[in-house]
């Protein structure tokens, strides 16, 4: 738990700014001063490594300037959360793009051999963030269940005999998830912890895809974190959380649920009511409360954020459990819109904090 009520945190990726955008934002968030001096000529024509450093430093300063208590680098060095991770492994081939919605796509890999880790990843980016951040740092990493669910399987499934019906797919999926957790995630997490990484968010956005596989999500989480000491959280979004409970509660090392709620919170529909279940199950973990809808440009107001926090606090029965964050990564929003949303989130948390602290005195 945090000493201050309703601390704020990032949750995922930000839009990757162009050079022009970086120049414009320098006046607002002053990120260049965090880096060693870069010659003007290099700034005009940076190589990829320099550009990634610029973007990472910008994202850290951007999130801190918006007032967040826990930050990262907007995943500035990652193509996206799936492809970047899979490229750190052997056993995969990429096939092409799959539509997520409208004209948003992601590249999906096929596992064609038993997965293995090339080398632990995210170390360099974590070292950079820790060296350049003033706020606390939280590292997001894609979880084993999501990596398996977002892949096509030609290796583990082919080992199942005959027609590939549901039972065969299930058995293959379990082998795949456990291999990813043991052979890829665990050694990577271990190395990150050795580097000083203390707060780690394991992203499992696919967890809600097959609710009856929630025990497998948990098995992957437990296998990945077994024997490791860090403050782990689990991020899940766009899911019916009630369908995943109580299975999720068996995630032993998880100390926080970072979930999306604002997307489903509309007039006539209370997106936060599902939190009652955590109280009913006497779950003591903190909650990363999604208070910003990341798929719409409409700006939340501080009052709206504060009202969402109040409602969540009522359902949980304990305001000290609540961190606030966007529903998910803000990469589909422009930097201007994302910044305004984050400012509203921080202001809304402050508003709610003042109300609750007023009640306490």
């Amino acid at each position: 738990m945090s000493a201050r009520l309703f601390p704020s945190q990032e949750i995922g990726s930000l839009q990757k700014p162009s050079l022009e955008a970086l120049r414009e934002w320098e006046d607002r968030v002053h990120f260049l001063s965090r880096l060693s001096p870069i010659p003007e000529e290099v700034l005009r024509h940076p190589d990829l490594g320099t550009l990634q450093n610029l973007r990472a430093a910008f994202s850290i300063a951007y999130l801190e300037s918006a007032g967040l208590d826990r930050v990262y680098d907007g995943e500035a060095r990652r193509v996206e959360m799936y492809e970047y991770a899979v490229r750190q492994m052997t056993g995969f081939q990429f096939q092409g793009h799959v539509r997520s919605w409208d004209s948003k796509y992601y590249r999906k890999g096929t596992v064609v051999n038993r997965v293995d880790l090339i080398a632990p990843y995210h170390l360099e980016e974590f070292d950079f963030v820790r060296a350049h951040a003033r706020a606390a740092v939280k590292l997001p990493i894609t979880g084993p269940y999501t990596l398996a669910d977002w892949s096509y399987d030609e290796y583990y499934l082919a080992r199942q005999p005959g027609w590939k019906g549901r039972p065969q797919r299930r058995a293959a999926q379990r082998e795949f998830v456990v291999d990813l957790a043991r052979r890829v995630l665990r050694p990577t997490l271990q190395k990150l912890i050795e580097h000083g990484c203390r707060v780690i968010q394991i992203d499992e956005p696919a967890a809600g895809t097959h609710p009856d596989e929630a025990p497998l999500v948990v098995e992957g989480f437990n296998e990945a974190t077994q024997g490791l000491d860090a403050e782990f959280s689990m991020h899940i979004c766009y899911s019916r959380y009630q369908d995943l409970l109580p299975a999720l509660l068996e995630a032993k090392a998880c100390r926080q649920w970072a979930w999306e709620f604002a997307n489903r919170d509309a007039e006539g529909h209370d997106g936060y009511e599902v939190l009652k279940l955590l109280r009913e199950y006497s779950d003591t973990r903190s909650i990363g409360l999604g208070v910003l809808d990341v798929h719409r440009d409409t700006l939340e107001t501080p009052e709206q954020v504060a009202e969402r926090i109040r409602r969540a606090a009522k359902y949980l029965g304990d305001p000290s459990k609540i961190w606030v964050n966007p529903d998910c990564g803000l990469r589909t929003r422009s930097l201007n819109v994302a910044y305004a949303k984050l400012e509203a989130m921080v202001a809304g948390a402050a508003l709610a904090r003042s109300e609750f602290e007023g009640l306490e005195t």
Partner: protein
Amino acid sequence: MGSNRPIYAGLTSPFPRPERLVAATRDLDRGRTTPELAEKAFVEAESELLALEERLFSNVTAGYLRWNDLFRPIAESWVGFTVGPLTRWLETNTFFRQPILSAPPRRTAGAIASRLPPPLATRTSTARVLLPGPYTFTQVLENRSGASEFEVLLSLGRLLGDEIRDLGGLGYRVFQFSDPILVTDPPEGPAETAVLQAYQSIADAQPAATTVVWTFGAGAGPALPLLDRLPVSVVGIDLTDTEPEALRPGPERLGLGLGIIDPRTTLPETLGDTVGVVREALRRRPSASVWLGPGAPLDLLPARPAEQKLLRLSDVRHTLLREGVA
């Protein structure tokens, strides 16, 4: 030795956008290309897919590449609807915009016809028109209309019936209603009665049409008693989710649709196993006609492996036609 019963095969969902179209639509989204160049990419992709379908199958779709999701054409064009938040599409990593119904729904005449893939307008007799099934549509929408869920379901049945009557007037003959929630969350009691009434409205509106209900996402076994009572021409079930042992004989009037291509894996279906599972299904549930297709939506795959799977689908059909189904 060959089969005397008609065996059809074809797409049962939108086809994935080919890589060139992915690039064009992304560029359009980011302001890096013009609407004219993006349109050119759509036309080329539709034309290439159509050529493949016409070579392999008797029904064509041109891929429905322009549709953002199954519900959007209606949500964007019919009165009473608006387009709502991103929502997960069943157990997949794809999302649709939830339709929000704020008033009694009304059709906008001609709106769906204008949103069908343009090449279908000159191939109406072989086109397969994709529409949302009334039950799934009712289940996924946010109902703020004040009407009960059953009233909405019955309204949608009537409106979809009116729609296929109009489309029938343009020459379209085959209509597929994608209704996966009939098997993922089967209706019971009064809801079951309302589903039957909704489909009766569709059947009454265009009795000469071939109507296909396509289900996927879960085993169809528990829903078969209802599916058998639907007043449609063909009931489609996904064999990649339904164990053949769950099948039992159905009414003679019903054609049997079998989803035999699994878009959740790029692993190609083996010809022998796939032909075998079709034969097993038909042994347990004999049918006068067979409609083969992908089970779940094929656009869960990238375009290239999807194309390979269409070729395999055609191979299965030809093997069954040549060697018989027994």
